């Protein structure tokens, strides 16, 4: 199962590519992505799709909520759950 730190590193790469996250900003489990990058609903969904592509996973609709997607720790846990299956 992927380590949480590794997942967060990859989420950081995705956020840099999709959300313009600054090079000197590192994501932590407590990070709310909206506080470190320009995010609106469209970009949020684009970010979700990029995360799915980066990890070769597909989230179930029931698992997706704004709170899960914007909190790095919760999103990494969801990714770990998907990757570990």
């Amino acid at each position, binding site marked *: 199962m992927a380590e949480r730190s590794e997942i967060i590193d990859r989420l950081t790469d995705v956020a840099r590519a999709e959300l313009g*996250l600054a090079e000197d900003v590192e994501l932590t489990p407590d990070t709310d992505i909206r506080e470190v990058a320009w995010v609106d609903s*469209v970009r949020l*969904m684009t970010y*979700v799709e990029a995360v799915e592509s980066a990890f070769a996973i597909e989230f179930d*609709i029931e698992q997706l*909520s*704004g709170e899960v997607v914007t909190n790095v720790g919760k999103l990494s846990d969801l990714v770990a759950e998907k990757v570990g299956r």
Partner: protein
Amino acid sequence: MSTVRDYVDSRLADWRLEGQVPRADWQRFADLVPLAADRLAVVDSMITELLGTRDIGLAGTYAINEICARLLRLTNADDLLPAVGSGQLRLALALTEPGAGSDLARLQTAVSPGPPAMLSGHKTFIANGTIADLFIVASRSGDGGSLPLIDLHVLRRDQVEIADLHGVGAQLMRLADLRIDEVPVAETRRLGRPGRGFRYVNRVLTFERAIVGCLAVRFARVLLEDLGTYLSEREVFGAPLIEHGFHRLRLGDWWAEQRVLARALDRVVADIDAGTDLWQDVFALKVRASAFVIQLAMGLQHVGGASDWIDGGRWARVVDDVRWLTLAGGVVEVLQDRLARDALAPNGPPG
């Protein structure tokens, strides 16, 4: 009739009187035109051909159908494509809602929990809405909070209430208002995965914005050709208007912009067909090309002056016909805002 232009030229006057392409004629049109094309380059080529008629509404109604066919491909609804390709089915895409524009996060059209689950909502400014056999309707899916979880449902014409928005849109591509009143979801067809309509809509909007670019850039060329002819033939104070430096300079300026936009369009078309497109390029093309063709149409109306008015206002009608290009694919202001935010983001814009 050996070509699509031969056929269209023979029928265009009747279509304009009727305000649409009749069903039987659309099926004849389908015999001559590769409908439901899988490459944007093919669509661009056909748009260029159709714009030879100087009727952007005709090209627009064709383009809307192609955009919807693209959405069927994206959602693996390939079983519908043969009927689209043969002209038996015409399509419309219903995204926009009163007060929400094309902001998918603010959709009100939704499915009631049921049982039975019912789809209800109100869509407006729907291109091809007066002629479509099938409507692809975007609805809110569940409660994703700030996430735009969207479903796409295919509804038949008899499942919606259609109102022609008279005078809105182009002559041959009128817009309509749709009311969806408790249509059982079981009697619709959902496209793609539940709640993932955003993905499909996002991809098809890229296609739509590029097509707006095709329509704007290719029509701009047609208008410039007509302007050159007019300036060469119309005499004022004993000389053709083209001999007056002001007109020649302005014509050169407009041709310069059309040329730059045409190169940008070629790049975007190739990138989209290769799957390597950048959203910033598509947005920029749509923003600039739609603004340019409207500016150009207004310029022609100004140049035409009283003679255009006396001749029936041909260029005044062109101005009306191109206005909708700023709306299709999302209003220009939204795209401008996103481009600016992207440019201001820490990593800056590409290129």
